[in-house]
């Protein structure tokens, strides 16, 4: 109360400090909001194109599945599946069968990583998968495939061509089928597109001569619901030997996790630099503020305020300044973020991804909170030395400054 009145008593000086803080906070929000947008896009892209929010598999599939996929088959439907689908936050459950094999057209043959999917359900589960040409799979039993961009380029595949798929069967033999390429797709992960093809589930089961699936891919309404859903689901599942893996623990999320931790460090450096600039630009003003009020400080102490109280008073003024600057800076930052996102930031293709994109800035409540917290601590920090100085004044000397 008293602190805020004192802060706004010197309008011009306070506004100089405020502008420094507001500018810093807005810059910080834009920087971290830009990275947040990228994290979010990457995360949601990976989840909605490929990994889902929760994957339910047989125990050990994540480790041994690539070498021997047929050992880890589970039922396509069961009581558990009905139970999961009954959760209100579950958007869809997509069964998938993963396998590897060889794809041939004419004289060219190469290996592929195939996924047997239910096209109806994948419409939701693969929302972030883009069909570049042709169309998506038409039915769960159709003799057709869609091919990743890199794999199609490798074999010079065109939409409408017929290819042969060759794979090991469940009984140890080899089987081949002819399928038609109906579409070419891209995800945000180039490494996946270079080897992937998608095939209707029943067709893949026919190729492998099996009946089960490997994964139930659960897609929730929102990513934030994942942990809550996991906690509720875990005690309910009846089939023994199932593992429930949230998206962030899958191998495919590893790239995302590492990117986030790398860039978070870089954003941290940016934040520290901005905090440092704020400290530099306002600490001088705060010292002037203390120096001008020597007489008042002397009076406070003559009237019986302890040194600690004087110190707290000036720190509180710093906090008020930091909070006001933080709030105003956040308003400016959010406004600027909206504007910049509306215009769009053209970006080149990132490493490991296929296409260039237009980025935006995403300012989450968490970022705003963090920015305000940082501006308050920074302002308090900048005021620490002046406040300490104030609290150590000799009363008689300080009173001499009173006018």
């Amino acid at each position, binding site marked *: 109360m008293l602190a805020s009145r*004192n802060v706004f008593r010197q309008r011009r000086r306070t506004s100089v400090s405020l502008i420094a803080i507001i500018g810093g906070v807005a810059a910080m929000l834009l920087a971290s909001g830009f990275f947040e947008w990228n994290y979010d896009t990457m995360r949601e892209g990976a989840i909605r194109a490929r990994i889902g929010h929760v994957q339910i598999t047989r125990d050990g599939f994540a480790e041994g599945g690539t070498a021997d996929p047929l050992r880890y088959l589970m039922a396509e439907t069961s009581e558990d599946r009905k139970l999961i689908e009954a959760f209100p936050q579950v958007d869809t459950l997509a069964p998938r069968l993963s396998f590897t094999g060889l794809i041939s057209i004419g004289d060219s043959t190469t290996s592929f990583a195939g996924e047997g999917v239910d096209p109806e359900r994948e419409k939701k589960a693969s929302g972030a998968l883009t069909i570049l040409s042709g169309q998506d799979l038409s039915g769960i039993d159709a003799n057709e495939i869609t091919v990743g961009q890199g794999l199609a380029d490798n074999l010079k595949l065109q939409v409408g061509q017929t290819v042969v798929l060759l794979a090991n069967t469940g009984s140890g033999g080899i089987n081949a089928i002819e399928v038609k390429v109906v579409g070419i797709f891209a995800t945000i992960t180039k490494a996946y597109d270079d080897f992937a093809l998608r095939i209707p589930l029943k067709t893949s089961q026919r190729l492998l001569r099996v009946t089960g699936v490997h994964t139930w891919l659960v897609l929730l309404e929102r990513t934030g619901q994942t942990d809550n859903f996991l906690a509720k689901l875990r005690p309910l599942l009846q089939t023994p030997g199932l593992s429930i893996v949230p998206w962030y623990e899958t191998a495919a999320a590893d790239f995302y996790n590492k990117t986030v931790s790398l860039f978070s460090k870089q954003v941290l450096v940016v934040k520290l630099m901005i905090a440092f600039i704020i400290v530099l630009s306002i600490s001088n003003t705060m010292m002037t503020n203390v120096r001008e009020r020597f007489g008042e400080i002397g*009076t406070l*102490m*003559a*009237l019986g*305020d*302890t040194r600690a109280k004087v110190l707290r008073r000036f720190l509180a003024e710093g906090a008020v300044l930091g909070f006001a600057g933080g709030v105003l800076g956040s308003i400016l930052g959010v406004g600027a973020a909206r504007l910049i996102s509306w215009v769009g930031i053209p970006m080149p293709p990132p490493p490991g991804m296929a296409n260039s994109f237009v980025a935006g800035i995403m300012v989450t409540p968490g970022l705003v909170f963090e920015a305000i917290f940082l501006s308050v601590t920074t302002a308090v920090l900048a005021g620490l030395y002046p406040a300490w100085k104030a609290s150590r004044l000799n*009363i008689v000397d300080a009173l001499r400054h*009173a006018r």
Partner: protein
Amino acid sequence: MSIVVLEHVSKEYRLGDHMVRALDDVTLSFESGVFLAIAGPSGSGKSTLLNVIGCIDMPSSGRVVIAGHDISGQTPDQLASLRARTIGFVFQTFNLFPVLTAEENVEYPLLQMEELDKQDRRERVKEMLELVQLGKFAKHRPSQLSGGQRQRVAIARALVTRPELVLADEPTANLDHKTGEGILALMRDINRRYKTTFIFSTHDKKVIDAADRLVGIEDGTVRILGVRKEGQWAITNVARRAASTTDTEAAALKR
């Protein structure tokens, strides 16, 4: 009971390369309830004497006992607490907090007395503002008040904790004559009614005339002690006595 006791108090401080002796072996004691003027030219040490009595300055040597508390060896926080509860200050430059209204200024010293709740504080503040005849100006900021009104607020602020001792450093120096006399009359009135001890420094003859005790100080030593009874000053000239002692000794040497 003596509310202020000074025994052989000296105060030295460094000014550039020089050591200045602001107080030189001062021994004094005042009874509770006096209305005392410390008079002397500027640089005589009267402000230092007042600061030492107010526990905002520590003596270089000697003993200071204020309202029964020996202040030597006390920590800054202990002294702060002593000031908050037993001493009120009135300054030459008023020193009100510019961002607070008159009543908030008066309330300020009460905020550190945890035993008072909001209601108690409000009552006391009201009572004090009435006492200094500023009840109507409770919501005014210092910048909206005249010099005399500001000094009245300051007096209310000094009195609100019901201190045993009020120290006023040249309280009328920044006021015109008429206003200054009003302020003096107010303090005198409070002194009579509530037996609050007032000690003020001044070099104004009119202020001295309002006092009932006088300490004349020059070059850091006490020269004059005055007591007024029934309008007549009984002056003890300390310096002359010292001088006469020297004269006697000089005479003795001649003999």
